[in-house]
């Protein structure tokens, strides 16, 4: 009895609005969904896509007062200024070295921590170690800088005063060129290793346990299991994260480097983004700074696409 009126109603609505069939009708049915998306889409267009268009100022002698419509166009002059700059090679070198240090200093300890936690059978111990080591991920780099300061500040830091009391002289590691990059890696390991291990732990948990049982039956010891089952099980995740890291190789972690940087370690610590900051915000050479930003973004994009292709070629699944 109930079936007929519904069928009749449907028929009527189709008849009266023929455009509701097919694509248009599903657009109409999704009208509330589109409405929900409006604030988010406005945000993305305004704060992501408009700045992408704003990279046009890389081709301008941009002046904050004149704006994008009033500033003069200079073609590729800004890019020429960057590439001719004697600092350019130095900055690229610093960026790449710090990045590579950090990729190694992140990914290797992450895997090792995950492998170790995976061996732990005492549940409370595993949980306690995990809870503690995840924590620092949520602290800001400024706080980590403060912690480093409490250890390394000349004259008052725990390590500095220890070295002084032992009669080994005054040290100022925070302004030491040789220590700057290791300090970045060490603080990165302290802050992010626990959190970085999570994703590998998940990959470990998803390895088929029967593989291990079969391996034991075949007489494989712990190391052989690690080599033939566990590490291959981590490969896909590792490659995936590596692709992402390679795409960001010109980043080198602006937030950390900027906060730890001081004028005495520019030689070894000045990276692309800190250079952009100085040119844009301190010298107000917005065109040149934006050009460097464009250069960096393009290199990053090419690297991500390239690394993804490579990963697929060697048999991994890639990001897309």
């Amino acid at each position, binding site marked *: 009895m109930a079936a007929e009126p519904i069928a009749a109603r449907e028929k009527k609505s189709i008849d009266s609005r023929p455009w509701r069939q097919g694509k248009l009708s599903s657009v109409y049915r999704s009208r509330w969904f589109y409405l929900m998306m409006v604030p988010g889409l406005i945000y993305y267009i305004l704060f992501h896509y408009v700045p992408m268009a704003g990279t046009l100022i890389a081709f301008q002698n941009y002046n904050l007062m004149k704006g994008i419509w009033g500033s003069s166009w200079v073609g590729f002059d800004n890019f020429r200024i960057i590439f001719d700059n004697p600092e350019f090679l130095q900055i690229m070198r610093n960026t790449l070295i710090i990045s590579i240090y950090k990729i190694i200093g992140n990914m290797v300890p992450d895997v090792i921590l995950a492998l170790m936690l995976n061996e732990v059978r005492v549940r409370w111990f595993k949980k306690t170690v995990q809870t503690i080591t995840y924590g620092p991920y949520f602290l800001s780099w400024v706080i980590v800088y403060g*912690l480093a300061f409490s250890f390394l500040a000349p004259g008052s830091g725990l390590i500095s005063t220890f070295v002084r009391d032992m009669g080994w002289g005054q040290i100022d590691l925070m302004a030491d060129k040789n220590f700057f990059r290791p300090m970045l890696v060490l603080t990165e390991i302290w802050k992010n290793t626990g959190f970085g291990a999570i994703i590998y732990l998940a990959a470990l948990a998803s390895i088929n346990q029967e593989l291990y049982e079969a391996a034991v039956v075949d007489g494989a010891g712990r190391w052989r299991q690690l080599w033939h089952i566990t590490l291959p099980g981590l490969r896909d995740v590792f490659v995936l994260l590596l692709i992402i890291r390679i795409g960001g190789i010109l980043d080198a972690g602006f937030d950390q480097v900027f906060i730890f940087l001081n004028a005495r370690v520019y030689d070894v610590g000045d990276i692309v983004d800190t250079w952009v900051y100085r040119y844009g915000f301190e010298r107000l050479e917005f065109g040149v700074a934006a050009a460097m930003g464009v250069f960096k973004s393009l290199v*990053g994009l090419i690297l991500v696409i390239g690394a993804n292709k490579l990963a697929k070629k060697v048999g991994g699944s890639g990001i897309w």
Partner: protein
Amino acid sequence: MFVLKKSKGDKIADGAIYTFLALFALLTLFPLYYVVIVSVTPYMEVMKNGGFIIWPEHFTFQAYKEIFSSARIPQALKITVFITVVGTVLNMAVTTLLAYPLSKKAVPGRNFILMGLVFTMIFSGGIIPLYILVRSLGLYDTVWALVIPGMVSTFNLLIVKTYFENLPPEIEEAAKVDGCGDVTTLFRIVLPLSAPIMATIGLFYGVTHWNEYFKGIFYLSDKTLMPMQVVLRSMIQTPNVSTELSVNSLALDTLPPETIKMAVVVVATLPLLVIYPFLQKYFIKGALLGSVKG
């Protein structure tokens, strides 16, 4: 791993693993413990030992009294609490409203929009155009410059979207049969089922706001608007703590500058440490969901 009988070598390996993990946990905790100790050590103890020590005989909370009676720190805390609360609420609202439709495969244009959003993860216009945009929108030197430019994190968006996709479709279908519209379904049916993921992104967004540093550096010149982290950074670097705090207190001369500095570090850290254990059980799940390919 499965081992039928533990050999001697296995036992040694186990011992090494447990020892290493315990040490790593201790090394993680120690710096946090140490800054707390430095922040409560009186000057005379520092003088007596020729530096800070790991366990002082006396404690003093003078440093905390000083920073809370200064002008700068309470002001910076006020700004930070404001952007953390208001910012997180806005973030979660906008993110959820964007993620829910994107979790529905039947919405025309969904894939196109999704591609557009994910593209922002691998390509950006850089900081300079963003700065110019913030200025031309009139956000420069307002508290909103700390909130609006980071309204949605694509990572968090994908986490929520994946979570919505994995909810059993029958529940929403039942709601539709009962006559619920899309909006009602989201608020009455879907959100109550999404507490874990909301807690996760709430934590991620909240922490991001609490730790806000660069938006302050980039988009603000007014010192009274600066969030906590900006003040903390300049406090740590300054040789002259009392100017930085803008107080003229005699007590400051009787406290080592490091004590004050570390007290500020503790104040900036404490709220995170307090909420962390409560939210800890959620974020692991969230972090993993986000890594599922979208």
